[in-house]
């Protein structure tokens, strides 16, 4: 067990940081905001942490905190700037934001280390710290998923106009998701960099956007659990698929495509749907007279309807 843990420590840790990254895209998406600003803030957070540590000797905690705050503030400001945008237009604008950041750091001279990036920003972080952060984040997010707040977030996503006719301040929700995604992105970026000690402009790329999106769609886009499931799948897939060797990417592609086709709500969505069917079946079984004939479809009709 201990051995297993130590040889998989990187996977365990990157599961936790990747979860935060995925959440930074999922949180806005859940409110109908198709924003990848979180990925840009992942880059910002990574660089701030590395710069803080390498150039200014900040402590690990300070570096992470600073990254989260700056990420949140930058994303919030971005949100203010582009609040008129929706859908894929918003997606494009935020992808542009992310890619611009990667160009900025290439051209950042000594501060950012240019094309080579920065090295030696090894933070004092262990799995326990990461776990604590993840738990706090997940607990906080749970509140936005269940009960009244959950319903409101869903209304903001599904029908903003309806939501505002229900007294919900849609613009404020949207701006808030920007800030949250910035904080999450900043956390994810800074912790990733402090774990691996290096950051380069290449770390902020379109593939990260794709990865985050794939994780939450395959895992399930409606709750943090979906993000977690997706993260576990994609972080551990190379490990699990190692046996197919060089065809790993082909298998990966087939699995992702199959998930898109067969799992409309992602893995968690499928699980929830399966559970519902199971419960309904049980209800029906319980409703049927114990010694009578099995319920005919005809009989089940109105019964199920009412």
């Amino acid at each position, binding site marked *: 067990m201990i051995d297993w843990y130590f040889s998989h420590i990187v996977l365990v840790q990157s599961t936790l940081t990747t979860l935060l990254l995925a959440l930074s895209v999922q949180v806005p998406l859940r409110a109908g905001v198709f924003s990848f600003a979180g990925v840009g803030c992942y880059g910002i957070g990574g660089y701030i942490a590395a710069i803080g540590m390498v150039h200014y000797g900040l402590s690990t905690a300070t570096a992470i905190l600073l990254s989260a705050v700056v990420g949140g503030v930058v994303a919030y400001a971005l949100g203010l700037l582009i609040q008129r945008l929706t859908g894929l237009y918003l997606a494009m604008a935020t992808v542009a934001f992310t890619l611009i950041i990667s160009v900025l750091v290439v051209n950042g001279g000594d501060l950012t280390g240019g094309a080579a990036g920065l090295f030696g920003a090894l933070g004092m972080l262990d799995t326990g710290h990461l776990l604590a952060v993840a738990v706090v984040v997940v607990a906080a997010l749970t509140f936005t998923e269940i*009960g*009244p*707040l959950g*319903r*409101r977030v*869903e*209304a903001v996503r*599904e*029908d903003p*106009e*309806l*939501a*505002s*006719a*229900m*007294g*919900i*301040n*849609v*613009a404020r929700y949207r701006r808030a998701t920007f800030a949250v995604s910035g904080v999450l992105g900043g956390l994810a970026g800074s912790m990733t960099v402090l774990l691996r000690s290096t950051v380069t402009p290449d770390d902020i790329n379109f593939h990260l956007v794709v990865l985050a999106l794939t994780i939450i769609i395959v895992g399930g886009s*409606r709750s943090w659990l979906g993000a977690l499931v997706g993260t576990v799948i994609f972080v551990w897939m190379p490990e699990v698929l190692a046996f197919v060797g060089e065809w790993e990417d082909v298998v990966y592609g087939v699995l992702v495509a199959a998930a898109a086709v067969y799992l409309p709500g992602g893995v968690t969505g499928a699980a929830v749907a399966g559970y519902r069917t199971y419960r309904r079946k049980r209800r029906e079984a319980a409703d049927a007279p114990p010694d009578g004939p099995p319920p005919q479809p005809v009989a089940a009709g109105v019964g199920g309807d*009412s």
Partner: protein
Amino acid sequence: MASGTIEDVDGAADTAATESVLRADDVAVHFGGVKAVDGVSIELTPGRIFGVLGPNGSGKSTLLAALTRLVPLTRGSLEFEGRRYDTVRPHTIAARGVARTFQTVRILPGRTVFDNVALGAESAGSAGKAERGRARQRARTAIERTGLAGKERHRPDELSYGYQRRVEIARAIASEPTLLLLDEPTAGMNRQERDDITGLLGDLRGEGLTQLLIEHDVQMMVDACDHLFAMNFGELIADGEPEAVVRHPAVQEAYLGKQGRAHA
């Protein structure tokens, strides 16, 4: 109330009423060249059901959108419980107690009937635990009253059209609003089903709820409303006692087919 085109069929009845819930003054909504609403002034007094009649495209729904701030006003002013609100954002006025239904069904597809109604119920109050309990109770009551009992756990797309409309109504009344705006709430229902809804609206009036109702069923409007407005081409063409309004020649001319004439 300034527009010269309004023919006040019996002006006296209204002015005697108490303080108004909502007052719209010379409201106009233009979309480019389309004058969807053009200088409408209305006043809604507490505890009554007001109806809006008018041909298709006469601006009824747009008027409702204007009253709920979902479209910008081209001109005019709005007042709710004595406070101007023609520049606030839609959620503000909704939060003050104006609930509405939409002409085309708008419900959250992924949520159950109960959740949809609860969304309305919760929009009224704070987030406290006791209040949450009350909100659930309000939602349950609204579901009962709209004939949705037993369908709480259904998803909207599993419901027939008529039942989807009821969800809209339930959601609106669950917020226990001060003013309820209904845009063709009974479209797709037959006479009996309409009567149920009308009965419900009457009960709500009994509880003091002010309502503004848009419907094309003249019989139902006459039965249900205390006061009718008739619109055509974005303007009010008549305003007053229901019976009087539907008999008004301009309304007959603009609006009523065989069905309405039979009634008059």
